[in-house]
């Protein structure tokens, strides 16, 4: 199930992947052991005490006694790389105490979390106070929305052609005011619009148009259906509580194909991970969106190209996409979902919620072509690619120009492939980030 590529794709950056490759050597690991649940080993580092490295295969989740701030660290990756390439070199036998303890603590933590979620769902701390706070925040945001609508109209009365650097600086002030009003999502959109001034004016105009749509939605919020109201909250940058979603979101049990895993550095010290899933039976697409601060890493590891049995809890939305995952069990290498009209899926999603930033796309039987930048051509349609040149050449080399199955993200203009398969039913040929 795990392959060298999928392990390397878990690396937080290229340097870690490279360092991990360098540690793949029996002489560095005096102790290596594994059972069906976990892999563990001791790695001789620069100190005299070896590092204790362990991986819970259910995730995979990592832990290591080394002082590295990277997560997972090179030791964990190297251990897993060795397990993948030469599983026989690992001794069987019962795990040592430090492994048993960690696995037990993980199980306990998961258990506690469930209990907490259940408790939270049963009784909110002080429902009245919470409702009051929420009403106050809505008030502030609605006032900010009215201001934003006026500001938008001002910009258009004066014309975008007259914008100069001083005016663009004023846009930043507008964004800052939206942050103060607790609507960081709108602030982000104002900043993006500002960043595009000077390029094609229609790009700025399109962004301002969507902001206008947001303002008008905000003005008649009470009249909107519940799902649209939820989308409005997401747009404002005011996400629902995890516990709330677990308590009230719609559940969907299915066998999910892990289409792709993307990990990006958002701000210094903030890592965003997006896991894109496709339900084999329901045909639904889902996004598991998580953030990790200061290189802490994510509780649960995800590997692209496998099928998992899981129940997802969807955030309320007119076009439900984002979800939370309760326990997932890996079933095996995925046999990709059947062919679908990706364009139709995407258009339907936009119609229900025009503010979806990224769409999952599975582009079957696509041939890479270089025609003023890389394109992925399938079914008489060419998607322009947002893909690093080295990645495109690596894929060409591995697959020799045969049709590929690409899974990735469509941002409205370009398609960023994250996972590529040659023949469906085999592990992925390539994943972004795994050199």
């Amino acid at each position, binding site marked *: 199930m795990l392959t060298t590529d999928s392990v390397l794709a878990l690396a937080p950056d290229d340097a870690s992947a490279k360092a991990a490759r360098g540690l793949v050597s029996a002489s560095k690991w005096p102790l290596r052991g594994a059972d069906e649940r976990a892999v563990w080993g001791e790695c001789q580092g620069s100190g005299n005490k070896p590092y204790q490295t362990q991986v819970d295969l259910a995730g995979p989740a990592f832990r290591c006694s080394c002082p590295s701030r990277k997560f997972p660290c090179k030791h964990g990756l190297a251990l897993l790389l060795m397990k993948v390439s030469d599983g026989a070199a690992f001794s069987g036998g019962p795990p040592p105490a430090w492994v048993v303890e960690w696995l037990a603590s993980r199980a306990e933590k998961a258990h506690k979390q469930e209990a907490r979620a259940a408790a939270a769902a049963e009784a909110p701390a002080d429902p009245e106070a919470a409702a009051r706070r929420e009403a106050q925040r809505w008030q502030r945001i609605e006032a900010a929305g009215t201001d934003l609508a006026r500001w938008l109209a001002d910009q258009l*009365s004066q014309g975008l052609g007259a914008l100069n650097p001083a005016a663009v600086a004023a846009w930043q002030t507008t964004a800052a005011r939206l942050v103060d009003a607790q609507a960081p999502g709108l602030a982000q959109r104002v900043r993006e619009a500002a960043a595009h001034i000077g390029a094609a004016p229609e790009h700025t105009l399109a962004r301002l148009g969507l902001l206008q749509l947001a303002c008008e939605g905000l003005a008649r919020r009470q009249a909107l259906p519940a799902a649209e109201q939820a989308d409005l909250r997401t747009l404002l940058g005011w996400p629902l509580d995890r516990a709330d979603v677990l308590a009230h979101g719609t559940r969907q049990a299915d066998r999910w194909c892990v289409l792709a895993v993307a990990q990006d550095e958002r701000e210094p010290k903030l890592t965003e991970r997006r896991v894109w899933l496709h339900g084999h039976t329901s045909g639904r697409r889902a996004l598991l969106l998580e953030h990790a601060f200061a290189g802490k890493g994510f509780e649960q590891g995800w590997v692209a190209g496998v099928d998992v049995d899981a129940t997802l809890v969807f955030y309320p939305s007119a076009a439900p996409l984002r979800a939370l995952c309760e326990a997932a069990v890996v079933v095996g290498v995925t046999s990709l979902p059947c062919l679908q009209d990706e364009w139709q899926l995407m258009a339907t999603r936009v119609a229900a919620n025009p503010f979806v930033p990224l769409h999952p796309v599975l582009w079957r039987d696509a041939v890479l072509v270089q025609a003023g930048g890389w394109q992925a*051509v399938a079914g*008489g349609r060419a998607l322009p690619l947002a893909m690093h040149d080295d990645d495109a050449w690596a894929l060409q080399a591995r697959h020799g120009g045969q049709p590929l199955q690409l899974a990735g993200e469509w941002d409205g203009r370009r398609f960023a492939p994250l996972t590529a398969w040659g023949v469906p039913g085999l592990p992925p040929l390539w994943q972004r980030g795994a050199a």
Partner: protein
Amino acid sequence: MSAWSPLLPAALVGTDRHTGVWPPMGGWPPDVAALVHEATSAPARAEALLRAAAVLAVTQAASEFGQRWTTALPAPATPDAHPAAPADALLGWLLHEGPPRVQHELLAVWAARGQRLPEAWLPAALELGRRSIALRAPVAAVLGTRGHWLAAKRDDWRWAAGSEQADDEARWAEGTLEQRSALLRRERGSALAAGRERLAAVLPELPANERAELVGALATGLGDEDEPLLESLLQDRSREVRQAAATLLQRLPASAFVARAVARIEPLLRHERVLLRKRWLIEPPAEVGTTDPPRPKHEALGERAWWLYLVARQVPLAWWPRHTGLEPGELLAWAADTDWAEALHRAWRDALFTAPEPAWSAAFLRHWPRGAGPDGRASVLALLPLAEREAHWLRLLDHDGELPDALLAQLGPGCPPPQHLSLPLSQRLAAAVRQRLASGSVTLQWPLREALPDIASLLHPQALPALRELPSHPDDPPAVGALLHNVQRIATARARLHAPDSV
């Protein structure tokens, strides 16, 4: 004209000043047009414009999904008949980050086995060849059809595209300088005259650097029939070309060029009786006029010494012992006692590299003459067959007991890739290295530290196990730990390359 064009005039000048048609009319599809008109019916123009923009932004997001593609798709690579070598992680490390010598060895071993590169490594291998011309031929030999297909897709990889199949005449007409040079050398290997005529036909139209490079290709299969062409090139406009031609003529003992050189040197050398002994005396030419090349500005040789140097370096080395009856070693010692030591030593060194003579190589190796500039024994060694080089190194090992620094510096340059050392010498070296490492930390032994990766890259494959576990010391700094780890890794990877099943 984009869907946005009808909205842009008002958006750019501002709705306050805009005097054009309102509401705007666009070539939108009917459904979109209806929505835009509903939006622009708002009383305030700015708001109406924003609403129209919202309609277009959303409809565009829902409708834009790439472009129609109607041209034919590029053909995929044809399947490969040869097996791909296993994409072993350790060998992958060698190819991507190993020392160039071992990269070369890896490629040569696979080529000899009829294997080709694993597909995933093709871009890295083509990049290697792009940066290092020396690695191009070994890379091209293991690309397979997939690699050739890939190389044809990129300008900076095209040197490797179809180098097996391409038509010779087409490559000679359109190829790069290297391709033409390689083709010429290959043709010289089978049809000497055809190669020479091919070259002679194009020489007049080539720029100087290309002339010099292609003339150098005549070295393959050089013979007396090449003399007329080379002789005519001595009048070439470019000094580079004249030099290349002279170098080759010097290797033809029967050539007029050599005869002229001998005729110039003979009168300068006299056998005279001094007291009771006869001895040889040499005197530079009295007047030469302008020289080619002219004496450089900061040349250490004086003017007359420079003339002597120019005359002497064109004389084939074999002439000197024949004429004087002295051995090369005796000649080196004799020259050191004359006033013209540096001129002679330098001339002989140049002549040695132009047309190697085993007896002279041995003499230079035994004792590097002071006048011949910085110690070049490592390069002289490279002129000898490997067996003689090794005999020289074994003598050094015997002489010093352990690892002399001079030996460490010679090993790498003295053994060009993809060759490796013989088993007996390798075992001696490995044992000496282990002994040095065991007897104390290498932290301050810079020549050894520098040479260790080279040694691991050079040893006979069967001697490698000795380097796979190296003695280390607890107080080694991290850099030494990393060095030893690297050496062990090179040794392990090479052992696996040569015996893929047993390691």
